[in-house]
């Protein structure tokens, strides 16, 4: 920016700080492209740069009454924009750290193959017992396992569940001969 333009900017900012509303539009029109270019150069992409420049511009006009006559308005405005860009860069860095994938879980080296085999056998036995139940009993037990809501009164659901479990026990006894 040429020295004369910088001087003009400082004069307009001083007028705005003093309460002269006529200085608002010319200042806005002159500052917007300058701040946008500056922010895009700092942040490296157009979208973030424009966002930062927008916020900086809003902050500049919110703080216009603080501007001291005699100061260089361009430096003051760019200082506010720089701070806004720095805040966004820090935010981006924090977001990147939060999104990093979680480290892989440690392998459970205490897995016992025998335990695995027992669990597999129990599962098969349960399937065999459940297979002996009627559709209603099977549906009630499955809904309960999945935590699904059944469209019936709670007392009715409780009774159905109780009957299904009793029949499952009975089927288990028949197939496996144990309680």
């Amino acid at each position, binding site marked *: 920016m040429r020295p004369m333009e910088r001087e003009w900017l400082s004069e307009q900012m001083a007028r705005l700080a*003093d309460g*002269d509303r006529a200085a608002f*539009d010319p200042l*806005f029109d002159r500052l917007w492209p300058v701040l946008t270019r500056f922010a895009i150069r700092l942040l490296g992409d157009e979208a973030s740069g424009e966002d930062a420049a927008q916020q900086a*511009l809003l902050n500049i*006009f*919110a703080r*216009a*009454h603080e501007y001291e006559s005699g100061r260089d308005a361009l430096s003051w405005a760019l200082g506010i924009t720089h701070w806004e860009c720095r805040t966004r860069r820090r935010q981006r860095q924090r977001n990147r750290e939060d999104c990093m994938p979680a480290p892989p879980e440690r392998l459970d080296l205490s897995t016992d193959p025998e335990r695995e085999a027992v669990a597999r056998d129990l599962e098969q036995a349960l399937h065999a017992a459940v297979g002996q139940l009627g559709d209603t009993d099977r549906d009630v037990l499955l809904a309960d396992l999945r935590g699904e809501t059944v469209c019936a009164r709670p007392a009715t659901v409780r009774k159905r569940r109780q009957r299904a479990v009793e029949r499952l026990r009975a089927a288990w006894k028949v197939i496996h001969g144990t309680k």
Partner: protein
Amino acid sequence: MERSELAQLRRRARTRYERSRVRLALTHALLALPPMLLALLVWSRPGLTLVLSALLFAAIGLAVFRGRDAARGATAGVIAGSVPLLGLVLAPHLGHLCSGGFCMSMCVPVCFAGGALAGGYLAWRSIKTPGSAVFWAVAGVIGSVTAAMGCIPMGLGATAGMAAGFAIAAVPGLALARLGGRG
């Protein structure tokens, strides 16, 4: 950025600016508090003091919100008006002025002197940093309301004395400022 988005940004920036001026005006309007507290402490006229304080608060707030000469006039007016107000704190302790069978309370001379000092201060301000008609109008109104918080409870004589002192000191100052090319 599209035109409509830019127009929206312009409106938002303008709103932020106006809001900041409102906050500034409210902060400056607190200048009405010291004269109000002083008047409440010295005089037993709380109703009148509160009414004048509310007027002062509103006048200072509006002037600062408007900015420029109005804001400068507001600050100058409060300073100028505080002089007669402070003087009246001393007046009850100064007794009476008596001469050849005629006696009067010191309040009238003190108000007159206070008004003259206030007018002189504004005249000096106007010569040093020439003010416009807006400056004078705002300073005059705010100065008068501030001084009135002390002079009105003392009576019509004291109030008239203040106004006379102000005019005698301020008018030449104003004329000088106008001769200087601004005003």
